[in-house]
């Protein structure tokens, strides 16, 4: 905490006070302007496109998607993995970095966590969209039923059900618990009747008494401790959807760490993509500082390295295994029919992030924004490569085949962004999207008798 404070001081501005945190953050909740409504309606418009595409697909038949017989999974599963991946960094930032006491997480963690929850909500749609009979998707849930049947616990897809539902529950709970004191702060400042009621109910009557804080802190630590393994496990389980199969290009033990690193990679990029406009729109420059961007850039650099290493390892393993199918698959990816997505992925995920070795670029907001979008595209392509390329060239050459991209898939993909964006947009206007309490925690408390080196701070009074 100390060194963070020092970094603040280095900015040659007055240190942040408790009151300023509240003021800045709660200012975000003020009645929205046209821009916000425009954003919201754009998102809803996209969502309507997506929803109508889905209904069209259900009405007409699953054939409206692009899948074919060798390629049973396509855009939807790519989207699923993509969104689960996006979700990951949220948990990483909120839980893992909390445990590591990495204080740079504080200003961005709420945003990251909201992103997690909404991304999981988005990701969770895709398995349902992608099944042939979505109205029976609930058969994957082990509930007592008149058929006396249970699901197959040996299937990675059932693990997915467990992993994703647990992940959603835990991250949503974690998110909500973290929100409680901040909502209480919002409640205490709320003016309109609606907001009073909204915050009054959602803060559950939080007061911030010493016992409450005591249990809260203990519980929060436990939540962080519980969510931390999820960071590793959820995407590992998702990766097992592939790794547990025998498809060349999927059947690899490297998948869990590879997927987790990729998820964090894409998630951090997504946090940057969201944080930059938010920071600009709500003038959060004093809360989300270049220091944070620098730290996230380093995280990107690290995970990009891990991801690149995984790519190389995949190729090495395929060569080393002397398995003709694996070898063919990894020859096919760079030099086959779909070379473009492969090289696109390589550029976006391995080459472009290397620019972050340059210090000035790490804090160059415009550059980071562009790079984060490039990385997101790259990570989508990575999943495309894994899913499409592997399925299109499996064991039996006679059964090799292609994919038929359809506008329905594009519609649903766009709709997913609309769905995610809609929740994000609503969230930033109704709930504090920067963690008030947690930022305050890293600020030095106002002390009359400065025990440490914070004499200056204690002199600054609020009001």
């Amino acid at each position, binding site marked *: 905490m100390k060194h963070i404070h020092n970094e603040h001081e280095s900015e040659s501005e007055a240190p942040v006070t408790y009151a300023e945190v509240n003021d800045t953050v709660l200012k975000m909740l003020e009645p929205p302007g046209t821009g916000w409504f425009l954003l919201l309606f754009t998102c809803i418009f996209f969502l309507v496109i997506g929803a109508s595409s889905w209904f069209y697909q259900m009405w007409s038949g699953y054939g409206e998607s692009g899948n074919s017989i060798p390629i049973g999974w396509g855009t939807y599963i790519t989207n699923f993995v993509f969104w689960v991946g996006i979700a990951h960094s949220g948990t990483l930032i909120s839980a893992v970095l909390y445990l590591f006491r990495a204080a740079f997480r504080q200003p961005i963690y709420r945003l990251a966590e909201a992103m997690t929850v909404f991304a999981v909500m988005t990701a969770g749609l895709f398995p349902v969209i992608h099944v042939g009979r979505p*109205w029976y998707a609930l058969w994957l849930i082990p509930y007592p039923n008149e058929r006396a049947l249970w699901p197959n616990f040996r299937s990675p897809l059932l693990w997915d059900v467990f992993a994703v539902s647990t992940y959603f529950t835990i991250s949503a709970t974690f998110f909500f618990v973290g929100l409680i004191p901040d909502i209480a702060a919002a409640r205490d400042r709320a003016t309109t009747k609606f907001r009073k009621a909204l915050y009054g109910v959602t803060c559950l009557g939080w007061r911030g008494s010493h016992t409450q804080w005591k249990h809260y802190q203990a519980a929060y630590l436990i939540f962080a401790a519980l969510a931390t393994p999820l960071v590793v496990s959820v995407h590992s389980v998702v990766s097992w959807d592939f790794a547990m199969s025998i498809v060349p290009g999927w059947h690899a033990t490297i998948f869990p760490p590879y997927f987790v690193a990729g998820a964090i990679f894409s998630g951090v990029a997504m946090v940057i993509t969201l944080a930059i406009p938010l920071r600009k729109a709500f003038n959060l420059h004093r809360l989300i500082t270049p220091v944070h961007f620098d730290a996230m850039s380093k995280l990107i650099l690290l995970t990009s390295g891990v991801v690149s290493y995984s790519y190389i390892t995949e190729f090495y393993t395929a060569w080393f295994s002397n398995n003709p199918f694996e070898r063919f698959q990894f020859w096919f990816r760079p030099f086959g029919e779909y070379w473009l997505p492969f090289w696109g992925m390589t550029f976006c995920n391995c080459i472009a992030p290397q620019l972050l070795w340059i210090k000035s670029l790490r804090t160059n907001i415009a550059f980071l924004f562009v790079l984060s979008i490039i990385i997101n595209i790259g990570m989508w392509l990575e999943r495309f490569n894994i899913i499409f390329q592997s399925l299109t060239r499996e064991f039996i050459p006679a059964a090799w085949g292609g994919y038929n991209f359809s506008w329905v898939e594009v519609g649903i993909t766009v709709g997913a962004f609309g769905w995610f964006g809609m929740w994000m947009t609503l969230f930033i206007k109704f709930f504090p999207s920067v963690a008030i309490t947690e930022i305050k925690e890293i600020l030095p408390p106002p002390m009359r008798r400065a025990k440490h080196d914070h004499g200056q701070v204690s002199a600054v009074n609020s009001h």
Partner: protein
Amino acid sequence: MVKKSRFVVVAVGITAVLAFFQFQSVENGHATPDYPAVGVRTGVYNDGQAALWDLNITDHFHYFGPEQRARGYKPQQPINFSHVIHVQQNKMECQYCHWSVNKSAYAAIPEEETCMGCHGALVAGKSEQGKKDIEKLKDYYNRGEPIPWVKVHVMPDYLKFNHKRHGKAGVACQECHGQIPEMAQVERVSSMKMGWCISCHRERGASIDCLTCHSHR
């Protein structure tokens, strides 16, 4: 305090309603006690027990699923054929009319000629309604048209029930179809949902391999 008690009342109420249906379903199953003496519980097994918990809306609501697959489905038939008169009062054997039940997977609806065997010249019916119905039968027969009976036991696709095998294994008709002899209008007494079949299969040690029933035939 008021709120709390209200909650309790609602909870107890819901439980009571559920329990009512629960027991009622069992009650229904036992509704017809002792005709003829087959000595088995008729069409109960775990009927409804698991179904109460089933979240599958498509199986439960008529808006999503066919009414014809619900217990108690009792359609109006083109001719008011009464099993009471034929079976209970005149002691006819099931197989006399449904003759293919032990020969084929299907228990055939009797040919009109079978009906005409008695009703053609001999039996004209006692009641007014009965006379009318027999006239109807003759009309159909003379026109050479089949009677458009309404299916009572509508089963979903991809379930192949074999009457012959069940009959030969000693399953009495009443066990699934209920006390048909006492029905003036045939009604579906068993849900014929999968869990219902399975509980009997398990109880009697019959195969619970999916393909036993979900094979094509």
